[in-house]
């Protein structure tokens, strides 16, 4: 009887574990599918704000405006139609709200019934006008009004664009290059900074330190991993940022360097723990053989132990990079978040995770901005996937040829 129950219990446990395993895989798959579905929806969104259109005077020969030129026009950077392939004449950008300063509420009629007529009149009077109007009130019956065609956001504008200004009206700019470069710059330098001390501590802890020191050091390092990232961020903003500004005589301290330093500290526990484990796993026989052949302690460390632990060390590096690329809060606080293409470590950068965290809150669900943030998530996913797959390949190769 008892045996039977035991067997049933085992079966149930097996089933449960199998279920958990498959559930997790399905969940991950669903998340990825969701991410890409939402993200790729961006390319089905219109270039200018949803529900709005751009109108010009019918006599204007301009056929189409790129999102960049629309933005420049409304910012007052392009002021003449000639620059856009039109006739010589001043451009008059007109936003919908301005109608309310030209006419009183009464003149617009009850329930705004005369609004589109009045908008038509405004366009008729001004040959150089470009008006940004809601589709609902387009003066479509007016012969002297021409509505510019709107295309969907092009992948080349997203992946090749150099301006990230997602809330600009009428034409938001979704250029992802500064964000990708910012993320890579900060993470790569973080690893370069963290690797030497990380490996040093790992070697010290696995080979040189005596048991008492190790017992003290190990929990201390693990404690480092337990500090919330926002605390790192605040520490960075209040201590590291002013320090960088003073020591390097920079105009601003919120730079990629500050982000890299903070991320390096945050990646240290991961690197140390994993690298140390890998080194301690070197078989005792190998160490003793090396020592017996007359190699010194140092020669053993870097001719025997480090090569043996190479795959573990590369795993440590990859996990460190993974931690650095995905880190959000600390970076958000110290890098200044300026979306420009970085030319050096001493400039402010904006990373992908920081952008998603800072902007998702107010991005209307399902809108263009919202989708663009999901697409950023997809990019992040692809980057981390590439990093871990290549690490897997590297560590496999080492094993095949090394041992």
């Amino acid at each position, binding site marked *: 009887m008892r045996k039977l129950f035991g067997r049933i219990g085992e079966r149930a446990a097996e089933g449960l574990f199998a279920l958990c395993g498959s559930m997790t895989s399905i969940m991950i798959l669903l998340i990825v599918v969701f991410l890409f579905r939402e993200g790729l929806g961006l390319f089905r969104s219109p270039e200018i704000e949803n529900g709005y259109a751009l109108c010009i005077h019918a006599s204007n020969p301009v056929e189409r405006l790129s999102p960049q030129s629309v933005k420049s026009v409304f*910012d007052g950077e392009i002021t003449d139609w000639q620059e856009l392939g039109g006739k010589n004449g001043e451009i008059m950008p007109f936003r919908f709200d301005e109608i309310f300063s030209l006419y009183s509420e009464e003149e617009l009629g009850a329930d705004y019934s005369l609004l589109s007529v009045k908008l038509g009149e405004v366009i008729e009077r001004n040959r150089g006008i470009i008006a940004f109007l809601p589709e609902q009130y387009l003066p479509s019956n007016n012969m002297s009004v021409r509505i510019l065609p709107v295309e969907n956001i092009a992948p080349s504008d997203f992946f090749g664009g150099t301006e990230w200004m997602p809330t600009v009206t009428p034409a938001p700019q979704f250029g992802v290059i500064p964000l990708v470069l910012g993320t890579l710059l900060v993470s790569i330098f973080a690893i370069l900074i963290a690797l030497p001390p990380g490996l040093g501590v790992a070697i010290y802890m696995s080979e040189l330190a005596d048991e008492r020191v190790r017992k003290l050091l190990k929990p201390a390092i693990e404690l480092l991993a337990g500090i919330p990232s926002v605390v790192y961020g605040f520490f960075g903003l209040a201590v590291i940022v002013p320090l960088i500004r003073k020591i390097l005589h920079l*105009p601003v301290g919120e730079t990629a360097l500050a982000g890299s330093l903070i991320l390096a500290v945050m990646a240290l526990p991961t690197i140390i723990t994993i690298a140390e484990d890998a080194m301690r796993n070197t078989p005792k026989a190998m160490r003793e053989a090396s020592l017996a052949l007359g190699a010194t302690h140092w020669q053993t460390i870097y001719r025997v132990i480090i090569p043996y632990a190479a795959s573990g060390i590369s795993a440590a590096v990859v996990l460190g990079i993974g931690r650095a690329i995905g880190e959000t809060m600390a970076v958000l606080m110290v890098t200044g978040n*300026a979306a420009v293409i970085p030319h050096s470590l001493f400039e402010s950068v904006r990373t992908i995770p920081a952008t998603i965290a800072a902007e998702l809150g107010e991005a*209307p669900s399902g809108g263009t901005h919202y989708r663009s943030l999901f697409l950023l998530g997809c990019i992040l996913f692809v980057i981390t996937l590439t990093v871990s797959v290549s690490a897997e390949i590297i560590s496999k190769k080492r094993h095949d040829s090394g041992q």
Partner: protein
Amino acid sequence: MKNVFVVLMLLLNMLPYVKAQKIKGSDTMLPLSQKEAESYMKVNPSATVTVTGGGSGVGISALLEGTTDIAQSSRKIKFDEKRKLQAGGKTVKEVVAAYDALAVIVNPDNKIAGLTREQLEGIFTGKIKNWKEVGGDDLQIIPYSRETSSGTYEFFKESVLKNKNYKNGIMSMPATGAIIQSVSQTAGAISYVGLAYLNGNVKAVGISYDGGKTFVEPSVKTTKDGTYPVVRPLLYYYVAASENKVKSFIDYVLSEEGQKNVSDIGFITLK
């Protein structure tokens, strides 16, 4: 521990029966509404008011969907939002609860005393790059802004930049506290914060909206007498049909007691 559990269970049981008033929206107004709700519930023990943030836009769309009774907003309702509410058969009522002034701040070591609106526009759109162009030292100007999700960001853009866009790649910080911290430690910095957040680590500059004739420093006094130009109303919106439900809370906010909370939080009272 056990007590906590019992209380929790009780609360959970009560949840479906309590007709709570819900307030949702602007994060700027969050501390104000929370304080008002607390003291209102002290006066009226039977009432329940829950306050959540999320941003002005979030509050107004919740009003449209009927998932909140009052929307708190640090900007006027947009034309689109008004139309959507009307299309849903709802007339919306607006109540000004308090005023908030935006102060333009610089590093305390900066000698500049006042800036015109045009100069501010030039600085934040990236056309003016050095303090010596506006009468200061030879020092690079570092403008800091809030993140795009902030209502303060939008209001500053509307009021000071006249709807022009911030310069490409402006430094943007996630919170007001971070802005104060950065401005206090960066010599060439300039940014904007709510009047309530001003402290000794940063310096507020006078602002002129008349081309440099008069510069007005931000303070409770200059905001009240209307001479300080960068002021926004903090608003409550509700649907006219549910007026009975929310009236007593709104009246409380406008009462002397409620307005005392306004000045405690650091906003400007109506009178």
